[in-house]
């Protein structure tokens, strides 16, 4: 097992280098002059108010005067000691900005992921066991509809109906904590944050909810028709034991791999949700960095998101070995 984990860990390094190199090369090689795109500079340059020196200086500052490979190497050798450089937009260290944003996005996604798994796995199993019953049909239809609902629309509708305007006024319009909650006690502050996170979490959750329930149902259906389930029933095991121990355990394998495939999409989803609810997380930071063509921040976000994804895949691989002994054996050999 340890050998297996080590092998997977070693594979992570080239993959990570591949991802960051491609991202860096793409930013550098894309058409459009990066430096002159900075707002305001273009006009002053034309008016002759500033010389070309400032452009040269900016190029030097962000390593743009060097070839792509050298620039990448400079970036990478700093990354190894966790130096992400400074943001082009406000000159603050990138690590500091990410340190503020990452926990918020992680918290949002972890909360919604937990809710998704807690609700949709039992729901999916029940649906598979009572296949073609009224419950199964109705829940399948509802889940199908949820699955096709665009998240930015749902977010806007929730805001429109529940956050003031001409309709109900139950939730705040955005942000993660109210200004007036700054000097609240810990408990009240947490309550205030929870109140702010309600709608964003709902927006992030319903899609995964539909996806995972349908997935659980499908894998469970596949397993439940296998002969070893019939054998388990035939030898007189209780239905509960057949379902939870024999069937569910085998349907776990695809559910575990699913976790790894969800991860790369999280950042993209966060961009939309955080922009609707004005949440200062990674999605918002990414969006602002893209708008400002802030290469150090873009590179840092891409590499952190890639690292988290690779970590997720590694965890899924390990769990894979835990739930399926065959994989453990094969890897040990």
């Amino acid at each position, binding site marked *: 097992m340890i050998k297996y984990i080590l092998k997977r860990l070693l594979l992570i390094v*080239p*993959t990570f280098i*591949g*991802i960051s190199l*491609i*991202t860096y090369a*793409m*930013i550098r090689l*894309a*058409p*459009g002059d*990066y430096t002159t795109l900075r707002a305001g500079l273009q006009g002053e340059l034309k008016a002759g108010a500033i010389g070309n020196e400032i452009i040269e200086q900016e190029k030097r500052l962000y390593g743009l005067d060097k070839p792509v490979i050298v620039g990448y190497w400079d970036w990478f050798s700093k990354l190894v000691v966790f130096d992400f450089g400074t943001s082009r937009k406000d000159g603050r260290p990138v690590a500091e900005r990410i340190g503020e944003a990452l926990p918020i996005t992680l918290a949002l996604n972890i909360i919604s992921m937990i809710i998704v798994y807690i609700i949709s796995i039992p729901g999916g199993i029940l649906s598979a066991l009572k296949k073609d019953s009224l419950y199964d049909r109705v829940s399948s239809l509802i889940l*199908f*509809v949820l*699955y*096709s*609902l*665009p998240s*930015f*629309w749902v977010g*806007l*509708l929730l*805001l*429109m109906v529940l956050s*003031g*305007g*001409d309709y109900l006024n139950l939730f705040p319009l955005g942000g993660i904590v109210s200004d007036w909650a700054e000097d609240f006690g810990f408990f009240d502050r947490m309550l205030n944050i929870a109140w702010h996170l309600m709608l964003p979490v709902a927006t992030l959750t319903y899609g995964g909810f539909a996806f995972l329930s349908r997935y659980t149902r499908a894998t469970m259906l596949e397993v439940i028709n296998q002969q070893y389930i019939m054998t388990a029933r035939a030898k007189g095991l209780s239905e509960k034991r057949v379902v939870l121990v024999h069937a569910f355990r085998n349907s776990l394998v695809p559910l575990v791999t699913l976790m790894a*495939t969800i991860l*790369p*999409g*999280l*950042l*993209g*989803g966060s*961009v*939309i949700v955080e*922009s609707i609810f004005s949440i200062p997380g990674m999605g918002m930071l*990414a*969006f602002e960095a*893209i*708008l400002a*063509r802030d290469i150090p921040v*873009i590179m840092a*976000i*891409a590499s952190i*998101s*890639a690292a988290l*994804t*690779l970590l997720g*895949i590694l965890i899924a691989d390990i769990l894979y070995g835990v739930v399926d002994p065959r994989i453990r054996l094969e890897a040990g050999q």
Partner: protein
Amino acid sequence: MIRSRGYWAGVWREFRRNRLALSGLVVVLALFVVALLAPLLANDKAYIYISQGKAYFPILFEYPELAGLNFREESEKAFVIMPPIPYTSSEYDLDAIVIPPSARHILGTDEQGRDLAARMIHGTRVSILVGFIAVFIYVTLGIIIGALAGYYGGVVDMLISRFIEIIICFPTFFLILTILALVGPSLVNVMVVIGITGWTGIARIVRGEFLKVREMEFVQASRALGARDRSIIFRHMLPNSLAPVLVSATFGIASTILIESSLSFLGFGVQPPTPSWGDILSQSRDFMDFAWWLTLVPGFAIFITITAYNLVGEGFQDAIDPRAVRK
């Protein structure tokens, strides 16, 4: 002698049994018709205009003597037949900004007094165009890359598979946003960027299918007959792997339409004045507290379109899968 029905005829027969999938197909076709006929459905020029004993067809031809005429206001003086939505998508009217649905504007107007129904109808074109062309680009790329890996195996397969693993770890949506920010958002760029970032799923499917069939007799037979690699790949092996690719492409259109509208929603998609559903929805944010029609209508259109493609994809998948349980 009974002639065997072809494989695709069998798939269609299975598909037809699924009522939900069929209704999805009807919606998909209806959207096509709307996109094709958009200039005929929403236009400020009359179909027929008869004045002083002379008949004009302003929607089809230019008439110098009718230039500048507002056909909507001519109905009392002359015989006029207008299109169902008598506005173009870019015709603004500052006297009628953000008004709710009414007899004049059946879906209301936006912040520049443009008719929402006309904008929705013309926006259909963007969705369908992006959906089909982007998916076409990535299906082509995916087939070529997947076929190379599956057919040649060995080192080629290893390299391609590693490359696919790298691409899969990319935060795709973030990548698309970054590229669009650098090259500038436009309809063509959106299609190309989605196209070049989306091929991995198709490549994996094709690779898997090719690995399955490459040792089969018909492949060996064609090789023994001296067929070239290219002809074995495209004429013999590919048709056998096409069904799962097309299913995946159908779902791909749904997700591409979603990505395009998300991009437009964030301001990185199709640029104004070209109407796009995501862009309309994005502009509705400024008037969200009261202008429910600006939020409800475009979102609902995106939702219905995605649902329809997903239903078709699902029906298609059940139809090609022999293990699918028949009801």
